Every structure is written in structure tokens, then in C-alpha cells.
């Protein structure tokens, strides 16, 4: 039976490497899984507390079901939640509001023109207590991470509340929606760049070339000095090889330059290339230009045009800066919310 039910059954050796988990959008969501699947999904051997449903790493879930078991302790409630596919224990911590004792002397002493904040607060607390204290047969919504304690799987509720569903509208909507979520997301294998990270096994070849450029350049982002014909000693016996390497390197650098990924701050005998978006001084210079000029009446409304920024940065910082490189810098600054684009070629800063 377990085998036929086990959409989650998985050979532990097949577990995707943890470095890739964060790339799966399901990982950071509260997965709306059937309780049956939450109880059966495989726990990670790399990191306990993480589970796998169909190779999706999962650690927090979202369930809606009927309370079929309850137990109250000083600090928490334990609710057994039945969604029609399984029953799971939910550990629901009481909030401070719920534990605070009522002080009957506090209320009703002041009247602020018909609005009594103390009384309102008490009403609010009562409303919250009503939503947190559930009886058997009532509908509950629970979100939180999945834990396995004493061989038993349970949900540590980060949020939980009673759902008023007098005509079952919420339950019906949930029953209709969850299978769709499975079909669209959970039952689809997560694939990285359509290449699949499992089969064939993940390797650098599966990455698109463009991001490869960045990955290779970022670990040593500062400067790259091209050493003509002197790559590695001992290779000198192979001048042909060296010449080709050097030629290849030149071509690659040219491509990167054309795209603006690298640029030469000064044209000199030493061919020093700088990774554009890692050049902090350049970023500051561009930001300063935009910030200062945004204050001028001429640019205040529409923002500064790219070409205006380009000529200003060239005067102030580096004559060699290309438009492509500037555009990458602008994109980076915009992503960091340092500047704001007002059109596809105008920018302002505040």
C-alpha cells in the first residue's frame, strides 16, 4: 500500500544536492499538500527537517482541515487535523494575548467620546481567543514547518486560525484548487534551465553561456591583467599553442568588452580589464552624476538621458567607458534601487 501511495517515495541517493534547493520556488513557499503526502514524504538525509515531495524540497506547508483531536496545555494546543486524505498533529503555540489573564478592574473606567480603547482591545483579544481555541468538528487553517518528533510527523504552526465556513465554500474551493496546484507545480519535476539537474547530472555545461561568463569572472572580480605569451612556464616549447591561446583570450575579452561586461579604465601599455559592475568607484561616480543632475531644473522632471550620463561620467571618471558598460551599471544601480528609470533611457536619483 505504501508503495502504491508513495508519490513521495524516493531513493535517498537520488536526493538533489542542497545547494540547488533554493532555486526551486516550491522550497520557499508554504506547500499546499494533502496531509497524506505530508505524512509520507521522504525526509532529507542531508538536512533533517527538509522533506521531498517528488524531488521538490519542502519544509513548510499549508493545510486546511477538520479538527478531529484536541489537547490543551499551558503553552500550546495540539490539534489533530483531518483533510480527508490523512490526519496530522499540529502544534499551535498560544500567543501572549491568549495566555494573559483578564483583569476585570481594568475596563470601563474611561470613556473617550464613545470610543473606549481598553474595551476595544478586550474585544480584539476575545476575537483572537475565539479564533485560536477550536473544538472538534471545526475547520482550521494551519501553516508552518513540518517536524518529525518521536517518529511522528507534525506541523509546528507558525499561523493557525479557525475558519468560519458555514456553507463549506472554503473547503470546496480548497478541494478544487489543490489538485490543480499538484498538476501545475508539485507533480512537475523541477528543472534547471530545462536541462534537468538530476539526469543528466548537474554540471557547468548545463548553464547558459552568458551566466558562465559572470560566474567565471566574479570569483576574481577586481582586475585581470593579460599576460601576453607568458601563460605558464614550460609551455613556451609550444609557441603555436600559446599564440592560439593568446588569440582566443583576446577574442573573448573583445566580446566581453563589446557587451560591456568588462572595460578598460585607462588605455595604457598594461592591458588592465575591470569587471564593470564590480567597480565600486564607477558605480559611485555614475550615481553621483545622476543624483547631482537630477537636482537641476533641466533634468528634474524627466530625468537624465543615458547619453548625458555617459558624457558626464567620461569627463569625470573614465574616457574609455562604453555605452554598453554604462547600461550594465545603470541596470545594477536600478536593481539596488539606487536610481529609478523614468523612461527606457532616462534616470533619476533622489
Amino acid at each position: 500500500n505504501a508503495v502504491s501511495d508513495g508519490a513521495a517515495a524516493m531513493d535517498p541517493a537520488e536526493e538533489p544536492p542542497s545547494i540547488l534547493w533554493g532555486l526551486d520556488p516550491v522550497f520557499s513557499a508554504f506547500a499546499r499538500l494533502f496531509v497524506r503526502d505530508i505524512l509520507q514524504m521522504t525526509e532529507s538525509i542531508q538536512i533533517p527537517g527538509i522533506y521531498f515531495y517528488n524531488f521538490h524540497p519542502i519544509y513548510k506547508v499549508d493545510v486546511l482541515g477538520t479538527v478531529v483531536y484536541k489537547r490543551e496545555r499551558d503553552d500550546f494546543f495540539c490539534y489533530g487535523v483531518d483533510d480527508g486524505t490523512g490526519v496530522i498533529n499540529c502544534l499551535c503555540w498560544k500567543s501572549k494575548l491568549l495566555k494573559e489573564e483578564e483583569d476585570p478592574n481594568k475596563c470601563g473606567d474611561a470613556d473617550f467620546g464613545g470610543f473606549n480603547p481598553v474595551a476595544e482591545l478586550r474585544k480584539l483579544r476575545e476575537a483572537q481567543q475565539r479564533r485560536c481555541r477550536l473544538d472538534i468538528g471545526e475547520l482550521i487553517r494551519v501553516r508552518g514547518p513540518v517536524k518529525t518528533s518521536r517518529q511522528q510527523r507534525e506541523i509546528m504552526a507558525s499561523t493557525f486560525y479557525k475558519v468560519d465556513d458555514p456553507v463549506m465554500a472554503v473547503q470546496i474551493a480548497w478541494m478544487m484548487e489543490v489538485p490543480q496546484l499538484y498538476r501545475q507545480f508539485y507533480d512537475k519535476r523541477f528543472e534547471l534551465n530545462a536541462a534537468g539537474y538530476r539526469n543528466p547530472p548537474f554540471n557547468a555545461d548545463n548553464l547558459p553561456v552568458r551566466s558562465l561568463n559572470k560566474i567565471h569572472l566574479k570569483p576574481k572580480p577586481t582586475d585581470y591583467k593579460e599576460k601576453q605569451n607568458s601563460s605558464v612556464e614550460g609551455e613556451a616549447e609550444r609557441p603555436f599553442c600559446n599564440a592560439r591561446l593568446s588569440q582566443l583570450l583576446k577574442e573573448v575579452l573583445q566580446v566581453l568588452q563589446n557587451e560591456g561586461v568588462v572595460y578598460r579604465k585607462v588605455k595604457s601599455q598594461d592591458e588592465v580589464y575591470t569587471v564593470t559592475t564590480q567597480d565600486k568607484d564607477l558605480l559611485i561616480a555614475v550615481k553621483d552624476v545622476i543624483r547631482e543632475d537630477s537636482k537641476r531644473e533641466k533634468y528634474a522632471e524627466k530625468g537624465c538621458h543615458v547619453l548625458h550620463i555617459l558624457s558626464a561620467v567620461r569627463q569625470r571618471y573614465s574616457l574609455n567607458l562604453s555605452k554598453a558598460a554604462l547600461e550594465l551599471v545603470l541596470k545594477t544601480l536600478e536593481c539596488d534601487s539606487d536610481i529609478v528609470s523614468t523612461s527606457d533611457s532616462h534616470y533619476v536619483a533622489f
Partner: protein
Amino acid sequence: MSMLPPAAVFRLPWEVNSLKEGESVRTFGRLVCYQPDESRATLSAQHASKEHLVFVHTQFVEPFNPIIGAQYLVLGETENSEGVGVTVRARVLNCVDGVNIALLQRAVTEQRSFFAERESKQVEATHPGDGT
């Protein structure tokens, strides 16, 4: 550790009579009769121009406010009582009058077909080549 009851699977009212004893189910129907002295309620549902009755043992959910003619959702275990047939011993009995029965039925079927679909895919995956 806590003793959780088994999951109560959704059954349509006309399926309850063919269930074995001791199964956990949830089903629905219009309350047509309540006999408090015997702790017995009867739910009724129409299907394919036939009336189907679901007998409910209400001892665990008493006292409750019986509204004759209203829709109820029952959750509990099946029992075989002599002379009556299958009875559901209710753990939960909620009045859900106003529920869209047609939509609820569709949701139940939808969930079932999802599980059937998934299981058939798994069978395919574990026995590739079978039936081709």
C-alpha cells in the same frame, strides 16, 4: 503520544451502504428524521432520481440542534447495525445548510480523479512497458 483517529475519506451518500464496517468516512445529506431517545438521525440525498438514506448514530455529538430539512455534514466510523444496515457513528455532525451540493460533489470527484490519475502514472512508472 497522541492517538489520532484515521482520516475520514469523503464518500457520496449513496456509496455509504456498500462500505465495510469500521471505515472512517465523511458524507452529507438532508436531515429528515431525528430520534433523540435512540440517538439516531437519518440523512437523505437524491441521486439518479432515487432517494438514498444515511443512518447516523449521534450519541457522541449530543446534544445538538436538529434542524429538520437542513443539510448536514457527518464524519465518523461505519457500523453494521442489525436490521438497519450501515450506520455512521458520528464524531462530527455539522449543519452546513446552504451548501452547494452539486459543487461539493464535483470537488469530491475532482479529488478522486486526481488520485486515480496519479496512481495510474506511478503504476506506469514502476512497470514501464506493461500494456504497450
